Every structure is written in structure tokens, then in C-alpha cells.
């Protein structure tokens, strides 16, 4: 019983210190999303006049209207091709970014597709920004179920097109800004845990605060557990700051308020994992600078491997395999569903929450075992 009580006391102390430095903590949390979202997506992703090869097999009035409405915005430049094969070779050659095939049965809905889109994934941000635009136009004419988007992977052996069938793109506003936005939420949580949590452990030891805890009758594990709990609470603050900044900069959360709830849940679990890992390392380091280097050396790869700035599907197989062991992967998977797709399937919830939960239990137990609370 006293373990929980002591942990809460330590947690309370952490939160009071956090509160006392609220302005610094706010700036530290806000600066990364501001810089990353503005520089990497807001300024860099102004996408105009993207070349799209259009193959119009239907050639009826609705098809003409569809093409006209696509071209009416400056975003897309439509080039007409007479056959799908020609269009796909233009895609392979890099002349166009998309091939839009309007099937003969357009716009009548049946079970077969009416609009097929092929894209290369060289520029993910382009794909992610343009695909929803095409989709939104298409579903004004045809059933959403008949709109298919596929990554085009030219087979070098035969030269024949072997379309890769992916799930239809759904979601409110699936663009790169939102993709990056969900990645940045994860990054802030991880860096918050590594830097504020870990550095506090080192400064506490150097400053003698650990000493003043150790002379009291508290359970030594409480010093660690209190910190982990406060790390989880602080992550809620980080999530709120990042979400507000993202929304101000024009990102959307497709799932709305319930989405924010899930982001908070996944974020807290992620923060527990990362605070525990940070505590193990920080409790064994005396040098603040060395710890900072460690923090960057571990934080950035975790972020990249989890698909923070590029989708995991475009990774080489070895990185995809490694990403399975990165707790952040599961948090980001959830963020993506919530932010981009607007639905969070039960199966994914179960996977993400349970895997993160296991990560939390394992890292916390290991850190209790390995946490060095001694002062020498």
C-alpha cells in the first residue's frame, strides 16, 4: 500500500515542479511541432499542377464532367492518353504522378470498379495529398466502393503492369500534413519522456534530491514509479499542446473528440514505456551531455522506424521488421487511423493497446529491477 502512496507523492512532486516551470515546458513542447509542421509540410507541401494521365474508356457525359471538375482546380493537370498501357509507361517514366482510368461502366455502380487510380510512391506527400482530391471528385459521380487506388509497381522482368491492390483510400482529409501531424504527436511524447524525464533523474541525483528521498522510509521503487506516472500525466499535456498547434496550422482529426481520447490513451502508454527506458539509462549516467547524446541517438531512430515521417509500407523489408519492436509504431498506427481515416477498427485497437500495454509492463518491471537509486 505504501508503495502506491509513495509513488503518488513522488508523482505529485514531479507535477508540482512541472507546474512551476510551465512556461518552459510549454515552449519545449510547442517548438518541435511548430517547426516541423510549418517547415516540413506547411511550406513544403504546396502542391500544384500535378500531372495526371487520364484514360477515358467510358467517354460519356459524366466522364467528361468528372475530368472537367478535376481540372477546374489548379491542383491537377490532366493529360489524356488513349490506352492504359501508354499511360502506365508514362507513369513508369516519371512523366506523370498518377494514372486515372475511367472504366467503360462509369459511373454506374456495380461490383466492378468504375475508377482506378495508379500511383508510384516516390513522393509520398504528393500521393497522400492528391489522392483524396481525386477521390472526392470521383465519388460525386460514382459509388465510393467502386473507386480504387493502387500503387503501381512495374515488373521489370516482363514489362507488364501488375497492379498492386491496396485498400481503398478513405478518410476526411488524408494529406501529408495530417500524416506528419500524427507522427509529430508521437515524437513529442517520446522526446518529452526521454528529455524531461531522464534529465530530471540526472539533475536530481547530481543535486542531491535523490539523497533526500533515500533517507526517508519510502520504498525505493516509488522513486521510479512516481516518475513514470508523472511522465504519463505530462504526456497528456504534450498531446493537448500538439493537437492545438496542429489544428491551428490546418490539420484535422478525422475522428474528432473521440479521436483525441484515443490519442491520449495511446500517448500515455507510450510515455510510460519511454519514461521507464529513459529512467534505466539516466539512473546510470552522471554526465548530462552524454545523456543528451543518448537521447537523440535513441529518440530519432525510434521515431523514423515507427513511420513518423514516412509510411512503414515504403520502408525496406529489414526496417519494416525492426519497426515491430518499436513501441512507437503501435501508437502511431492508432494515431493514423484516428487522424487520417476517422475510424479506429476494433481489431487495431486491441492490437495497439495490448502490445503497448505489454511494452509498458515489461519496460516498467525491467526499470524497477535496473533502476539504480544509489548515490555513488
Amino acid at each position, binding site marked *: 500500500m*505504501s508503495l502506491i*502512496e*509513495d509513488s503518488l*507523492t513522488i508523482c*505529485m*512532486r514531479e507535477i*508540482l*515542479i512541472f507546474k*512551476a*516551470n510551465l512556461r518552459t515546458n510549454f515552449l519545449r513542447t510547442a517548438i518541435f511541432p511548430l517547426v516541423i509542421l510549418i517547415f516540413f509540410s506547411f511550406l513544403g507541401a504546396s502542391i500544384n499542377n500535378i500531372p495526371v494521365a487520364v484514360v477515358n474508356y467510358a467517354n460519356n457525359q459524366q466522364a467528361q464532367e468528372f475530368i472537367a471538375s478535376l481540372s477546374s482546380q489548379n491542383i491537377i493537370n490532366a493529360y489524356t492518353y488513349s490506352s492504359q498501357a501508354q499511360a502506365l509507361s508514362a507513369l513508369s517514366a516519371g512523366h506523370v504522378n498518377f494514372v486515372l482510368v475511367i472504366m467503360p461502366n462509369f459511373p454506374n455502380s456495380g461490383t466492378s470498379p468504375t475508377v482506378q487510380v495508379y500511383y508510384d510512391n516516390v513522393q509520398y506527400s504528393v500521393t497522400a495529398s492528391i489522392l483524396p482530391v481525386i477521390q472526392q471528385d470521383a465519388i460525386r459521380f460514382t459509388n465510393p466502393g467502386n473507386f480504387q487506388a493502387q500503387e503501381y509497381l512495374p515488373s521489370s522482368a516482363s514489362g507488364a503492369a501488375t497492379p498492386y491492390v491496396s485498400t481503398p483510400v478513405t478518410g476526411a482529409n488524408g494529406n501529408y500534413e495530417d500524416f506528419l501531424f500524427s507522427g509529430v504527436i508521437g515524437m513529442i511524447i517520446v522526446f518529452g519522456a526521454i528529455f524531461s524525464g531522464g534529465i530530471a533523474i540526472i539533475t536530481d541525483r547530481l*543535486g*542531491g*534530491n535523490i*539523497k*533526500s*528521498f*533515500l*533517507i*526517508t*522510509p*519510502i520504498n525505493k521503487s516509488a522513486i521510479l514509479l512516481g516518475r513514470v506516472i508523472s511522465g504519463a500525466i505530462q504526456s497528456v499535456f504534450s498531446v493537448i499542446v500538439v493537437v492545438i498547434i496542429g489544428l491551428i496550422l490546418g490539420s484535422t482529426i478525422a475522428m474528432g473528440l473521440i479521436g483525441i481520447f484515443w490519442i491520449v490513451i495511446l500517448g500515455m502508454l507510450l510515455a510510460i514505456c519511454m519514461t521507464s527506458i529513459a529512467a534505466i539509462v539516466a539512473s546510470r549516467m552522471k554526465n548530462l551531455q552524454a545523456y543528451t547524446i543518448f537521447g537523440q541517438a535513441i529518440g530519432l531512430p525510434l521515431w523514423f522506424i515507427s513511420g513518423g515521417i514516412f509510411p512503414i509500407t515504403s520502408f525496406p523489408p529489414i526496417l519494416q521488421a525492426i519497426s515491430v519492436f518499436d513501441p512507437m509504431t503501435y501508437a502511431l498506427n492508432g494515431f493514423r487511423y484516428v487522424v487520417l481515416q476517422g475510424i479506429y477498427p476494433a481489431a487495431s485497437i486491441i492490437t495497439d493497446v495490448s502490445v503497448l500495454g505489454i511494452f509498458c509492463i515489461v519496460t516498467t518491471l525491467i526499470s524497477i529491477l535496473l533502476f539504480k537509486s*544509489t*548515490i*555513488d
Partner: protein
Amino acid sequence: MADVIRVENLVKRFGDFTAVNGINISVKEGEIFGLLGPNGAGKTTTINMLLTLLTPTSGKIIVAGMDLAKEHAKAKRLMGLMTQETVVEADLTARENLDIFARLYHIPPAKAKKKIEEALEEADLVKFADAKSGTLSGGMQRRLGLVKAMLQEPKILVLDEPTTGLDVQNRSSMWARIKQLNSNGTTIILTTQYLEEADQLCDRLAIIDHGKVIALGTPSEIKRIVGKGRILEIITGQNETQKVAMLLKSKFGLAPEIKGDRVTAVLENGKEADFTKISANIDKEKLTVISIGMHLPTLDDVFIKLTGAGLRDSSGDMKGGRGSLGVHR
């Protein structure tokens, strides 16, 4: 009076370095016991072992009849600590500092509330209770640290360099507070680098150097190590220490000791009048002398006698320690 703390053959090694090398001391209930020594002498390591923060390499510590190796949890509750490094948490207010500590000591909330108010009162910090501790003056922070250490009413209060870095005024006020706590029955162990502090406060003290106790007793017992009488101290210039020493030896029959550019000798009781003669002789011989003086023996003299160096610089070079001692009277 019973021994409240007994330390037997205490040794602590860090790798090749022996920080504490066989210390034996005992502290009686209700006394102020001082551990005096330069930086790196092993005082803080000894204190840390007493507080169960470090495990001794060998040896035994018994607190109120309990062996620390076995009953450390129980023994820990009897002790309070104020350290040189942190006295308070700078980011928390004075009240929060005390509140967190009361919780860590599992003081029941109702009692804690009362104790915190009393503590603030005692530290003269009622007006500053809700100010961030980091913004308080050094003296205020120490006062807060002291009441914080006393919050759980320890029988033994450990003060690790309680006045290091304080100005003269705050130092003497801290001394008064320490004496006050002691007169209420708290046994106090303090470490200090200040000889004057040990002299003023301690009932008994141990001088520690290189991990060993080199002298143990009451301040007056320890001062007697230097000898009865007064200390003559001459600071020479231009490498004339040898000449000055020769003069003292041949003409006045003294046994001078040379430490750097300083020559000291004991003038036994009744021979104080020699001082003016020595002064005149030095003038006559045209020796260059920067200062010449005489004082009652202080712990500083003891320390120099025992370790061959001034307190602050005993682990470093022999020169230049004089001015920083602040104990010349």
C-alpha cells in the same frame, strides 16, 4: 550518557580509492559531535554510510542499539539530514517542500498540516511560505532546510556542512538554531570545514584526514595537542624562513616549525614577553617579515600540527591556505 551512535572499524573503498579507512567513533546521546576535515577527507562518505545511503565495505555502525546492516529501515526513521548540496527543492514553494517531505515520512495529514505551519513559523518563513524556494536568500533556504530535516522529529540530526557558503550573520544565526535544537534534546552530528564552527558548537569532535581519525576529543582537549601557551606565527618574505627559524631557535630556545613561508612556534605560558624581543631581534637582523603575531591555539593550529597543512589546502599544495581560514584572532 549512552552511546547513540557507535561506528566500529568503518571502511569504504571506491575501486582503488579508500575514502574511509577504519574509523572508530561513538556519539553520546544529546551531544553535538563534529566531524572536521578538509574536502575529500571522508566526512561525507562516513555520513552517507551512517544514513544507509552507502553500504560500508567493512565495519559496523550501530544506531540506538540497532545494527544498520540489519535494521536500517527502523534506524533510518530516527535520523534527519540537511546536506550541503540540496537544502530545498528550488522549484517548489517553502510549503510544498515541507508538504512533500511530510508525505514521504508518512506523517498523518492532520498532524502534517499542523507541523508544517509550526515549521514555517520556526524558520521565520510564514510570509514567504508560497514563494518559490529558489528565490529565497541563502540563509532562508538553510532555515527551511533545517526545519525540513526536523519535520519527522528525528532523535539524531545529521548536518552535512550546514553553514558552507553562508555569510557571517547567517552563520551565527544558524549556530544559534543548532544549539537550540540540541538543548531540546536532539543529538547532532555535523561535518564542517570550519574550525571555528567546530570550536563554537561541538561538545566533542573528531578530526578526519585521508579517511582516518587523527584526533578525537573535546575542543579544548584537542587544542592542547598543540601545547600550552600561545602560538607565535611569523610570515616571512624572500625565502628567509630558515634564517627566522634559526634566530628563534638559537636566541630564544624555541622549537620552530616551517610550513611554506610561515614559521610557527609555541611560546609557553609566562614567556609571552619574549614576543616583543623577537620582534626587535628580527628588525635588528634586517630580516624581511610580512607579518608577526601571537594568538591562543585554535583548531587551525591543531590541524596544521597534525596534518602538516592548513585545513583547506591539505590535499593540495602547502601554500596559500592561510587567508581563507578565517580563524585568525
